[in-house]
């Protein structure tokens, strides 16, 4: 028995997520062998008697009436050795392998085959966000810039990062090109719920886990003919910053924040939508930023940027006023940091706003920041200890242990 065409149309898979049952016509109108759910062993013996017809006719519709293992073998063509055949009998171009009768035998001689199932596998890394130690290694290796996103829960930190990746998938962001990432999985996770594959009706972003041990994303960007710039972005849970205005401890976020080259302060514009909330929202933003400054949370020379997230939710007649408020905060506490209106996922599904400008600001060169005095003292004693030990190995280990 041979199959000269494509057995099309009838579902043979009990578990098919889009099928209407075994033997029904495929709702996706897929030929059986195109179906990712097709399993030859699922074909029962009560197959249709419909004759096989060439694939090009496009109207064949039957369950294969023969041993599925013969799907790709022609009548007059001797079966090649098993190891030459793909399990599904599909061809390389994704079409079912059509085999016509031929007087010329197919070659089936010796090969230079390599079996990958032998030997041990090699880990290629998970592509997930980085631990502090991994981030520190990358910081050293790529002379990266560390960026920390600061803001209370639900102000749009993670959404912003997901939106960056979504935008790069559509094209360049302003003049910036995507140049690679060691944490592609982390970026895809951040935009998972904005993708159709998630099954959601509306794009959303889950809250970032407090106490997460892998907060760092790695992103390389490039523009014009310049060398790529590596960014190590700390996506910390908003819980770290929720009560900081009242004097709460930064906990694990403290050492990360103090070493940042650039801090992006996110202020939720949506909180200014209701006039009755505006004073509270302003006080919360000022309180948080002022407290962070006064507690010495930032390294000397750290660059600051204020991002007004969800700016599409700010009433148009208050937009300019909000930007002025933010500029005042920047002037008072952050030495005149730039203010950028952002809308990572506009409610009207229009193109995200402000991402290119933000990237311009985040990649602006800053002089290497020095740490506040108390951190410098700790660092000096550490360096002295290393010098006394006189061990290069110790030095390397110490560097690896340090957060970026």
């Amino acid at each position, binding site marked *: 028995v041979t199959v000269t065409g494509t057995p099309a149309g009838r579902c043979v898979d009990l578990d098919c997520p889009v099928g209407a049952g075994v033997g029904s016509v495929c709702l996706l109108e897929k030929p059986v062998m195109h179906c990712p759910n097709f399993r030859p062993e699922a074909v029962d013996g009560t197959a249709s008697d419909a004759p096989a017809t060439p694939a*090009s006719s496009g109207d064949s519709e039957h369950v294969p009436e023969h041993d599925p293992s013969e799907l790709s073998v022609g009548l007059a063509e001797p079966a*090649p050795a098993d*190891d030459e*055949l*793909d*399990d*599904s*009998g599909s*061809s*390389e*171009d*994704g*079409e079912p392998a*059509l085999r016509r009768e031929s007087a010329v035998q197919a*070659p*089936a*001689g010796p*090969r*230079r*085959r390599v*079996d990958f*199932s032998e*030997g041990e*596998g*090699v*880990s*290629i*890394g998970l*592509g*997930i966000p980085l631990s502090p130690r991994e981030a520190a290694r990358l910081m050293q290796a790529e002379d990266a810039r560390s960026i920390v996103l600061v803001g209370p829960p639900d102000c749009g930190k993670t959404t912003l990062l997901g939106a960056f990746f*979504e935008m*790069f*998938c559509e*094209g*360049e962001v302003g003049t910036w*090109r*995507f*140049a*690679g990432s060691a944490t*592609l*999985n982390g970026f*895809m996770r951040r935009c*998972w*719920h904005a*993708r*159709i*594959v*998630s099954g*959601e*009706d*509306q*794009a*959303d972003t*889950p*809250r*970032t886990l407090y106490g997460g041990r892998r907060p760092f994303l790695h992103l390389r960007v*490039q523009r014009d003919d310049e*060398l*790529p710039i590596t960014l190590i972005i700390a996506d910390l849970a908003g819980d770290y910053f929720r009560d900081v205005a009242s004097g709460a401890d930064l906990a694990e976020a403290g050492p990360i924040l103090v070493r940042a080259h650039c801090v992006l302060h996110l202020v939720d514009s949506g909180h200014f939508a209701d006039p009755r909330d505006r004073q509270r929202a302003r006080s919360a933003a000022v309180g948080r930023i002022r407290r962070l400054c006064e507690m010495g949370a930032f390294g000397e020379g750290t660059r600051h940027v204020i991002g007004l997230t969800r700016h599409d939710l700010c009433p148009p007649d208050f937009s300019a006023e909000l930007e002025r408020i933010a500029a005042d905060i920047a002037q008072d506490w952050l030495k005149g940091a730039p203010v950028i209106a952002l809308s990572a996922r506009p409610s009207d*599904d229009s193109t995200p706003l402000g991402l290119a400008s933000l990237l311009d600001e985040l990649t602006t060169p800053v002089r290497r920041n020095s740490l506040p005095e108390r951190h410098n003292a700790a660092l000096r004693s550490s360096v002295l200890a290393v010098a006394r030990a006189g061990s290069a190995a110790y030095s390397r280990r110490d560097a690896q242990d340090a957060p970026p």
Partner: protein
Amino acid sequence: MTRADVAVDVCMLGRHSSGKTTYLGALWSILRNPGSIAADRRVALRGPLPQRTAYLDAAAHALEGGESVLRTQRDTGEDVVLELIVDDAPVLLSQFDVAGESMEHMLVSRTAPGQLMNRIESCNALMLFVNPSDIALLATIRQANTLERAMGGEPPERARNVIPPVDTSVSDEQIWKHSPTAVQLIELLQVSALARSESVPRIPISVVISAWETVDPDVVRGKCSVSPVAWVDSKLPLLGQYLRANTSNFRSQILGVSAQGGDYSDEAVVEELTRRQMSERVRVSDGTIVSRDLGAPLTWLLQASA
């Protein structure tokens, strides 16, 4: 010629059904057949036929008869070693044809076969194959809503907090499995960069868009209507950016290659193509010139790795 003399040691990368074996089969058909001489061919077999060529023979056999090449079985690969003359220079072409399924499995399981990583590590050139009819996009809800509005519909009302505050329901495997094609291809290149020693700082990468006649039907008439570079920018923008942004790490070239010469499921096409030798069926487009030089990617890799 020994491995130490290798001028270009190529590793072929790509997802399943991306045209890797078809390319090899067509190339082999041209190389082994002394009668198939095309005017613009710059690659030829050097010396006698090599040993143990059944894999290549089977692929060429299928293509010559107007049949598609069978896919390489998962967890297997074929170590193809050919002594060639490229532009009058002797070249040992060592290609590692790996099942696309193996590469996709590698991306999801995050474990690569040791042999494959060793070969990637030792190669000095890469060929990245892309099937233009099998492109998975990121496909966001925003894009879908925009499309729905354009068609006069109204997307569902926005409802916030419809998902758990801290979502851990999506596994890393699931995310990799549903990753866009461009992400998978970039990750293949990144994994390759990770595996290779730093002895080849600027490894050349030839990106081959296979079945190019499905993208640019004019190619079979020797004309260019679509540029492979523009096509990548349009369909795989993330990959296009990645290639352009990393010129300091590698050089790349993008070609449209029609190794089959047409659609083998079309009887009329098969009827017409099987009258011709493989060298007369193949078309290679760089966006400005269409040639019949299937060795063009190899020639470029050789020049770029010199």
